[in-house]
């Protein structure tokens, strides 16, 4: 079976009906489930946070069988993820979608866990250090979408788990983890 980057595609990726939005309710439900699963695992493996509906997205077409998803189908599958809290539309026009292979709350828990395991309680990190620093290398946090990270941190701030403070420039925005 082919691969997309280092993502192993499932066998049924070569099944042509996968790329046609199925009109029959039960069949469609099954199809939507498979696509949700595919999108989440692909994005997670490739660290993809944003999908632009109008841009080429490797998972949404299969050159081997010459099939690709219509705009409508993409929107249907992504909306299904949005309804489950596994994605969020970035704009009213549904042109950009934030994929949450971890939900916001799960990200928050992940960060707390990361802090605890690495003994970062009471220490300070900049946003950029979290996104691309050596400390987070090899974790899910490496390469995390900036907007997403800020939202997660704000959630933690509300709960009193972190304190966000402004730096001289956006790059210097920092966060202090509480004990």
């Amino acid at each position: 079976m082919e691969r997309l980057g280092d993502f192993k595609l499932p066998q049924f990726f070569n099944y042509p009906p996968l790329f046609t939005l199925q009109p029959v309710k039960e069949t469609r439900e099954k199809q939507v489930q498979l696509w949700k699963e595919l999108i989440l695992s692909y994005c997670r493996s490739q660290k993809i946070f944003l999908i632009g509906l109008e841009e080429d997205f490797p998972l949404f077409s299969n050159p081997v069988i010459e099939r690709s998803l219509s705009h409508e189908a993409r929107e249907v599958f992504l909306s299904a993820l949005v309804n489950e809290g596994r994605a969020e539309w970035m704009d009213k026009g549904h042109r950009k979608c934030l994929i949450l292979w971890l939900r916001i709350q799960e990200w928050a828990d992940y960060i707390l866990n990361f802090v605890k395991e690495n003994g970062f309680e009471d220490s300070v990190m900049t946003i950029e250090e979290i996104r691309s620093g050596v400390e987070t290398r090899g974790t899910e946090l490496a390469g995390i979408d900036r907007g997403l990270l800020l939202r997660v941190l704000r959630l933690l701030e509300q709960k009193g788990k972190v304190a966000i403070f402004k730096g001289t420039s956006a790059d210097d925005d920092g966060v202090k983890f509480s004990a």
Partner: protein
Amino acid sequence: MAANWLPPVALTASGRPIFLPGEVERYLLPAVDLEPGENSALLPLRSGLLVLTSHRLLWIDQSSTSGFAIPLAAVINAFHPKKSIRNMFASPRICIQVSSSPDGRVAENGTRSEVITVVMRGKNDPDAFYGRLMEVLRSRQWEASAAPERGDFGSGSPESATVATTERVRMPVVGVSGILRKEQELWESTDKSLQEAFQDLNALMSKAKEMVQLAEKMRLKLLSGSSAQGNPNDEEMGSKQEIQDWLLSVGIASPVTKESAGALYHQQLARELADFVKMPLEKAGGMIALVDVYCLYNRARGTALISPEDLLQACTLWKKFDVPVMLRKFDSGVMVIQSKAQRDEEVFARIASLAQNPDALRTGISPSDAALTLGIAPALAKEQLLAAETKGLLCRDVSLDGFRFYINLFTEIDPSDIYLIKNNGQVHLWLSSLSMSG
């Protein structure tokens, strides 16, 4: 039993009377009672359908399950009592004097006579019926067909007499050439009657019976020819079959018409149609498009054509009768006639097995593929594929290559483990068909 005083009438599965050779329907009256003579202890027949044909007076009960006949040959006289003050408000009636056997059964050349009263309870036109009855009685058509069948065509002309004699010493009919030769001779002998027939429409109508007889005769000859033959090759059989089919589809000898059936038109049409579609349905595998039936049916009727509205109305009436066929409307609006015996499950089973052969697994099936394999029209095949899709059996693939159906694998794949392939499942089957193609 109510009426053993009259001979019974055979009915078709959908409740139309089976006519005698050459018998033509002339008038129909609903809600009619038949009352036996006053001195008789026999029970009257209540509220049935009265059918006047060229040969008989038929009475069919309301549910169209049984019927009785008065052969017109047994009718001595018929009279229409004048309205008097006494019977002014009673239902109109017509009295028919018939000959009967000593035990009171109606029969030709009986020694006694009996008066049967036809009581019309519905809103009928007794005078029109009476007029038609007298017309039929005067024409004595039953005598014509009771005579031996030989030499029906252009009888009395010297040519046909010669043909008839030569026919007896002729070589046995062998193969298509034999049939063609025989047909050629028949054509020549009937050329005259055909020419007469086509002179004008009236003449054609009066010749219609002969034409049908001609067709029937040729069919019988073909049938006997094929059974007599030892080892006919397939091609010959095929062409023979074709000729037979042609002739069979000539054959509605006495089509229901608005003129003969009046208010009962659509009801009787529905019954006639139910009988007619049986054969085309069988051939088409249990389902046939309404437009196809329209063509076939009108071809069989020949002159008394019906409109599409009449056909539709007749089909919708089937719901009320116990007939073996039904009208079905697909979601797309395509209408078909379907035999009730045909189960959707059977069709689905056939489609499923079609969709599981290696080629279909790999490339899917198009409506035209299915039409070829199932032996039905592409529009119908598409409907059946769509029905199978709705059922969850198939799913679709729409691409630049067109619209194709695949066996539904979605139901089998486990969303929580998208890499898992169950052994001997549909997905497994599909994968092996892919690897076969290389």
